[in-house]
């Protein structure tokens, strides 16, 4: 399910002057649908108490995950908050390992140590999965700093939400990144609710792309429900950061269909509001419509694809669930690298 990059065959459709091949469009669509079905399965598994702790789903926000990946290089760094399943799947990580992590299994992507909020894949340059709101933002500029230090032209894609944007760490990061022209794209997934607090109840300036003005960080607002628009604008932001001109803010306007986490019934918003986004602006339905209009697919072919994906996700869940729990011995693994024999607290020892 890895979305391979760029257009290489005939033009499938054109969006704002950019051409997308049929192959690329199918890959983007399939990945969005895969994420949707994966999250639904995760929700189910949570309901069955097979997934524990906190579990934050990204249903509705798939266009951001997929559009950004399409624009980014595989060598670019990426990190986000705890709403991380969709991003790591779009990044091309093994879905069975992601599901196994949710289930606390040995083959989990971080060996069962992290769970839903702490998905990491160093092979894919995916640095979390960070559980403290806004914490990943200073870390993100650190990756950008390393890129500049080594002059290797990698961009750090540092993602936060409309909740995270109000943390002080974010503004310290905007300032440093701008001052030193670090190659960072700050992505704000504005789903309009920080847990149960709406944007207008939490933010004096609700146009979040303007939040960099004091730091001379340019910003733009993007329809985060449109995968092609996300791809196009993200491409511009990445080019800006990569060229050495410094960071950029991209505010992705989006909506999460589910509550903040699985334990949130989302009573703070109306059914009508949710339905308006769900039925009127859904990113998957939107791309399907565009692709059907361009003659690249039919309603029937999408139905077939959906069946195929549901089956694949079910298999992933089955395979992940069949895995053993982590071996008790790993409790003591990976705390420090250079253990010092004879010094207390002793590695692998209670007393």
């Amino acid at each position: 399910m890895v979305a391979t990059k760029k257009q290489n065959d005939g033009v499938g459709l054109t969006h704002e002057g950019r051409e997308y091949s049929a192959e690329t469009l199918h890959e983007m669509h399939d990945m969005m649908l895969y994420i949707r079905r994966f999250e639904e399965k995760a929700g189910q598994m949570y309901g069955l108490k097979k997934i524990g702790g906190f579990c934050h789903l990204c249903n509705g926000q798939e266009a951001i995950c997929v559009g950004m990946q399409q624009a980014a290089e595989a060598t670019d760094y990426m990190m986000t908050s705890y709403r991380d399943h969709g991003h790591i799947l779009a990044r091309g990580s093994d879905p069975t390992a992601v599901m196994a992590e949710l289930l606390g299994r040995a083959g989990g992507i971080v060996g069962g140590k992290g769970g839903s909020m702490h998905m990491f894949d160093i092979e894919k340059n995916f640095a979390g999965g960070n559980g403290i709101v806004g914490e990943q933002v200073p870390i993100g500029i650190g990756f950008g700093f390393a890129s500049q230090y080594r002059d290797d032209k990698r961009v750090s894609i540092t993602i936060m939400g409309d909740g995270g944007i109000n943390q002080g760490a974010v503004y310290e990061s905007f300032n440093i990144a701008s001052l030193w022209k670090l190659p960072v794209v700050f992505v704000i997934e504005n789903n309009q609710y920080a847990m149960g607090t709406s944007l207008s109840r939490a933010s004096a300036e609700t146009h979040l792309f303007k939040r960099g003005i004091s730091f001379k960080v340019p910003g733009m607002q993007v329809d985060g429900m449109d995968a092609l628009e996300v791809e196009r604008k993200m491409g511009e932001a990445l080019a800006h950061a990569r060229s050495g001109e410094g960071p950029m803010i991209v505010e992705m306007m989006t909506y999460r269909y589910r509550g903040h986490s699985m334990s949130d019934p989302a009573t703070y918003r109306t059914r009508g509001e949710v339905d308006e986004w769900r039925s009127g602006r859904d990113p998957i339905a939107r791309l399907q419509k565009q692709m059907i209009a361009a003659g690249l697919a039919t309603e029937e072919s999408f139905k077939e694809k959906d069946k195929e994906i549901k089956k694949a996700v079910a298999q992933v869940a089955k395979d992940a669930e069949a895995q053993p729990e982590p071996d008790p011995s790993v409790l003591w693994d990976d705390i420090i690298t250079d253990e010092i024999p004879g010094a207390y607290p002793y590695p692998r020892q209670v007393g």
Partner: protein
Amino acid sequence: MAKITYREALNQAMCNEMERDDRVFLMGEEVAEYNGAYKVSQGMLDKFGPRRVIDTPITELGFAGLGVGASMAGLRPIIEFMTWNFAILAMDQIVNAAAKMKYMTGGQYSCPMVFRGAGGAAARVSSQHSQALENWYANIPGLKVVMPSNPADAKGLLAASIRDNDTVIFIENEINYGDVSEVPEGEYIVPLGKADVKRVGKDVTLVAHSRMTGYALAAAEELAKQGIDAEVIDPRTIRPLDEATILTSVAKTNRAVVIEEGWRFAGIGAEISARIMEKAFDDLDAPVIRVTGKDVPMPYAANLETLALPSVAEIVEAARAVCNRN
């Protein structure tokens, strides 16, 4: 061996490590053009240039987190806090990110880096700039905590900390920066996790770290005049702790006083005395006594400040008490 200051010793360690490894860089407030608030990084900007010796805005959380990210990306940051009092602003990055990164990522990422700067009580700067908080960091799996008490250890331990593949909390002492003593020239490494017997004695074990090591040595001189032969042990690395050296000493002296500048409750002394109780109960001829900072925020007035800190006289008194000589 040349006689140099504690701050010059730290400078030598950083310069040597930066010469041998391009991944190492120094970042913090006033480290470059100002040559360091305490002149620890004197001359380093001239030597290494602005790519590797980097002045930051006053933004502890930001540059601590930047260091965490840079270490995850393969660099070896030395992040200087002007003092450890300001590191409190960066606690999330130290505790929730650096300390846990290797574990939380199943070993994929780690944070090989040094957070360093001046800690402990300073002189006449009141509560917010004068405190010993090493017990906070020593409580956390994933961190190492290192505190040199003299120039040679400062050089050797800092070099070892920079080469170490884990996150090291390296707490220097503000009062000790001008101390002068002999320091080996060139490359010099003091391994982490090894205590040092600073004075050999047979009657009582004094365990003290950082600035308190000097106090313990002064107390030992006074005790010698009174016919008590004290052994002084400096753990040097607080976490992980070389308890064997302490326990071996207690087996010999049967008596121990643990000294620290920090507060008593859940402090380093509490941990060390608990370990002595757990591991050397039968060796003890008397309960371990702790000498600590008083349980008050540091006051400004000179007389009150003196009262708030441990003193040589208090160490002498505690040693006499543990030896039943009062």
